[in-house]
């Protein structure tokens, strides 16, 4: 198993999971910005996606060239099985660590949790 996912890596993988296979960079970035409410750098997004790709967590295919992109093609991403596994591990690590800390972090507990 590779090293644990970084924060931005997790964010991207979750966005990709939410949007489904064949999502392009623009949509991923918009999804992240809409949810987190902060501008995200396109450069950083692709740098991270590339890193995730070399680790086999995501893959991409090239789309068609599009006029609204000045005739340029786009990359369509897909979450691979190891990506999903890594995300799962991150999630369980996070929940394990965060348990009991909710009141100190001053965040509301999610309903339905013990």
């Amino acid at each position: 198993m590779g090293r644990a996912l970084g924060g931005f890596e997790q964010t991207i993988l979750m966005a990709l999971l939410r949007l489904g296979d064949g999502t392009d960079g623009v949509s991923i970035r918009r999804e992240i910005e809409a949810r987190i409410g902060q501008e995200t750098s396109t450069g950083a997004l692709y740098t991270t996606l590339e890193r995730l790709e070399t680790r086999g967590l995501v893959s991409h295919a090239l789309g068609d060239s599009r006029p609204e992109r000045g005739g340029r093609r786009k990359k369509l991403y897909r979450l691979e099985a190891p990506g999903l596994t890594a995300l799962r591990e991150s999630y369980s690590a996070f929940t394990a660590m965060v348990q009991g800390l909710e009141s100190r972090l001053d965040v509301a507990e999610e309903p339905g949790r013990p």
Partner: protein
Amino acid sequence: MSGSRPPLLPRFLLALLLRGEEREVISGDLEEEFRVLVGRSDGGKYARAWYRRQALKAVGGRLVERVRRSDAHVGGTGARSDGTGGEGGGIMRGLFRDVRFGLRTLARRPGFTAVAVVALALGVGANTAVFSILDAALLRPLGFPDAGRIVRVWGGRPLSKSTLAEIHDRVTAFQAVTGFESGRLALTGAGPAAELYGAAVAPAYFDVIGVRPAQGRAFLPEESEPGNDPVVILSHELWQGVFGGDPDIVGRTIRLDGAARTVVGVMPAGYRPLNRAWRIWVPQTANPADFSDWSGTAGTTVIARMASGATLEQANAELAPIARAYHDSDPDIFGDAFVKAATVTPIQRAAVGSFRTTLWVLLGAVALVLLIACANVANLLLANGESRSQELAIRRSLGASAGRLLGQLMVESTLLGLLGGGLGYALAWLALWTFRAQVTAAVPLGDRVGLNGAVLGFALATSLVTAVLFGLWPAVRALRPDLRESLQGGGRRTGRGTGRRGMNRTLMAFEVALSLVLLTGAGLLIKSTWLLQRVDAGFRSENLLTLRVNLPGGRYEKDEARVDYFRRLEDRVAAVPGVVRVGSMSFLPMTSTHMSTLFTVTGRPPQEDTPRSFATVQAVMPGMGEALGTRLLHGRWLEEADRADAPHVCVINRAMATAAFGAEEPIGKQIQLFGWFDATVVGIVENVREMGLDQPARPGAFLAYPQLPGFSTMYVVVRTAGPPRDLIPSVVAAISGIDRDVPITQVATMNDVLRASTAASRLTTMILSLFAAIAFMLSVVGVYGVISYTVSARTYEIGVRMAMGAGRSAVVREMVTRAFLPVGLGVLVGAGAALALGRVIESQLYEVQPRDPLVLVAAVVSLLLAAAAASIIPARRAATVDPVVCLNA
């Protein structure tokens, strides 16, 4: 619509710095989002800002990523020698790797890096600042078309209009020739009375300068006929300012000096006149009342445009016979100086004048600073190379080629150069910004000084050449040592590398010598400025307010009207509380405007073989002597009783008393001025340095204004009880209360006038002192660096000697003595050079000999003391070496 496409520069950066798919996808994403954002209501402002931000982040991020990845291939030693392998852009990859490695190396030696960068920055910064002045004054052409062909004729001496006509007819090297007289006209009827500085120009003026009015037309030839001249051309600024950009300005009538003139043209925006204060141009008319062939102090300044292909020598050759003819007609008035001045000078050179010499002195001085900085950096790199020789040897033995390592070292010094150059450029900017007022005041064309592309190029080239040249040499040396010995650390133990330490010491001696030259030069200038500040100007400059009034024509056409005005002025101002005494005079001392004329002693026939003498002439109102505070030596001052109808009298200064009468008693004798004005001497006063503090007083005569009332422009001097600045509003109000249409200008304290007159010499002194201080500091740091390096390189040897029983003081003494050998050598060479180079700044000095022994001794002593201090600190460290620790090391 310009907003529909993403901003050009970021788009270009993306295309330039990203590759392949990466470029396509990122540019595509940004463009897609940009098109969405540009539809917002703010006209694409947000979209462009967003695009710019995103593009810069993308480019920066990708560069960092690329460097990080290339590092993964390299490994720590940098020994991989196949710099050309790998996929696309191998050289770039190799470069990235070296840059990264170089930055890490520099960061690992923060002390070394900081000293080297600061040394370079000081050198480059000082050079850049001086270069920007050079660029403004000499290199960048003035804003006239083909400005290099415009020349000033006859050294700028005012010539009579008939001489101008003669030049026009006889000199074929000129395509066009013209003349101008600068002066002031009072503008009335458009707000408060304003005094406008401008020029009365002869025909063809606009052909010579090559710039024509942007609106309207230039003057017609017939407008130079007397009576045909009520026309005027305005500057763009005047049109925009006083006339509020009136679109119908051409054809409008304005009142200048009480007379109506029609505006026929407006000069283009951004046009910088020959004199940057000019705002208006009027035709110069051949007024028969002009003093047309008078002693050469009034008349028209002649400029010309060279015919294409004509040379300056050709023009000079054609002027010479004209000058000789004048000389033959009257060798007294048209003396040798007049004949010698019959040459042409390119207009820019003429504008810069004697400041050229100053500029070259400064440039020479600043080049020395750079050399010292270079020696410092070279020394540091040498020492650095020595301490790194082991590292380099290991890397070579692991297979790195010498070329590879050399390239690496070069990249390191280039980085140093860029860091130093960047900081230096910032320093230059800071210096110019801080001293912009002084520079504008003291440097001819100083308003053009600034940082531009040429200056940036200079800074970049200087820092890179410096760093690479002085980095290459230590790098080559660092790569030469014997591999085996370095690997064993033998250099440290056996005291090898003495050759390199010899080099260090040579550089140190060189630095000391150069600093001494600069210190001596600065010392000479400081002494000169100090002496200049102590010069007795001949009057009391404290608590003195000065201003100028210019009586417009028309109402003040008659002599009586002018005399009456100044009587009333003195009465009104004297009544202002806080005013002690008021006077008026035709020329203010230190402002370099004056009038001079031939004089003779009445009843003494002029001798054939002695040259006739000139005297400066001042027309003054009675209060002037006491207001200015000039000491009366003998006799009386001019008085109220010296009216127009009274016998003509004059007060002469001490210089004139000596020149005209020698040991005889002057009072009661008569002198003749202008060839027609006879006046009886009634008093003798102390000399006033009218031409400037550094100019000896000339023979001068003060005449009563009512008896010589030709001047419409007069300076008013007000002696005050308290700080003169406090009285400005009430004095100005009192004067404008007499006649609102009389412009009041140049309101200043006499101390300010004095300061302005020495601004240029003080600026030179300040700059050179600054350079000397930098040089001094750099060489002290250099001495310190070399000694402390020597100490650390010889720790082992010192340890051995102390183990054998050498005393601490003996060790310190030996270290200091060794340091002083090169310092002493540097001082000797430097003193010799300073003595030889003293002549260079001779023209800048006032009453100081370029070989002033006191200054030289002071410079030598301060340098020696500083060097001693700098070498004792590390030498004492040598004495604290613990033999046990260092022998076990």
